[in-house]
């Protein structure tokens, strides 16, 4: 068995048992979108560092799980966002938001596309 096919076999056997986790993960998308929008508003209005931390933590969690559950694009988008936020750690929350805003939009679009 080649490494690739071994990996595929493991992934396939895992797929069945992962289905409930995948469904649970997807069921959070709607509330996540609302939470991200609310945090975005809070950071924009009050420059809240706590809101930015919360936003970063939520992105981190999605980045960690999405790829493993087969949401490759969402996972990659979340990782890009997480990387940008880490690189901008020294900046003011409002400036961070301004710089990641379009990426955040793309990420939220990807979550929204999975709602249907």
């Amino acid at each position, binding site marked *: 068995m080649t490494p690739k096919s071994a990996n595929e076999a493991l992934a396939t056997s895992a797929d069945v*048992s992962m289905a409930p986790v995948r469904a649970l993960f997807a069921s959070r998308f709607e509330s996540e979108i609302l939470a991200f929008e609310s945090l975005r508003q809070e950071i924009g209005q009050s420059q809240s560092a706590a809101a930015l931390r919360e936003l970063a933590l939520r992105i981190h969690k999605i980045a960690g799980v999405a790829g493993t559950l087969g949401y490759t694009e969402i996972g990659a988008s979340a990782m890009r966002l997480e990387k940008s936020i880490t690189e901008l750690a020294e900046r003011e929350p409002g400036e961070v938001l301004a710089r990641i805003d379009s990426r955040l939009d793309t990420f939220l679009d990807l979550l929204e596309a999975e709602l249907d």
Partner: protein
Amino acid sequence: MRILAVDDDPIFLELLTRMLFNYGETDVVVAGSGAEALGAIKSAANRFDLFLFDILMPEMDGIELVRKVRGMPGNESTPIMMITTATQRDYVDKAFRVGASDYLTKPFDALEFHARIGMMKRLNAENSKRRELLAVIGKSQTPAPTVPFDEPMTASSVDGMLDYSVLCGYISALGRIERLGVSVMAVSVENMASIYARSTQKTLTGAVGTIATVLRDSMRPRLAMISYVGNGDFVCVIKYRTQFDQDELLTSINLEQSGLRDEFISKRLPMPVYRLGHQISMGIFTNRDIAHVVASAIASARRGGSEQPAKLRMSA
């Protein structure tokens, strides 16, 4: 294996538990925070064989958790696998320094997950054998060291000192670009055989830990990690490729060590005598070449760095 998995995200814990179950690991306890994990370890009737800690958690993060667990009796050498994302490289280094054994990057690759858990299983089996051997030796009060002269060992209380297999795992898990930023240097203790011959296992572990501390403190802040390989050879992973001045470094080591003279005398051990090897840049190489780099570094140290280092050509 009895596994404790810690993460503040219940979905991730569920995912992890199921992945472990798929590979036959069914004895998994989960905790949602560092505090909950410490409680589970304290109240466990049987020791855990493997810990899986997320790095980024609110309140107590994974690094603090490693530090606390390593301070708990019976958990000094239990394998700890950190779970991280690609953006948390700095955290991983910190975790290794306080005693983590390996790390897994999210999202998980099924084959890699399987291989790394298998490696932790082997590490745990080795630890169990060592504990059993030490228990037997302790009962018979045999004074000689239990670890053979030519085998690796570690002193878990030394910050930055890792089991040799863990150090190799760390290097092989580095990305190609990250490898470019590190180099390897070996230090050989010329009279280690004499130290070994006069030691019990306890004094030998103490001496290895003291030597590692001396080397670490002399190379700060550039030393990332250090391991004892056996035969008197220590391998150091250096964070930058800039070369140490060998004479200056040897002077620093001897200065650091001079304050420990009484410690060696009280244990009737000779003071260690050091030979430094050349720093070998890692370059871009495949995993199979790590042993070759380490062997070259050790050979250079045994020669006392008297020859120019061979320029290693790392083939794919």
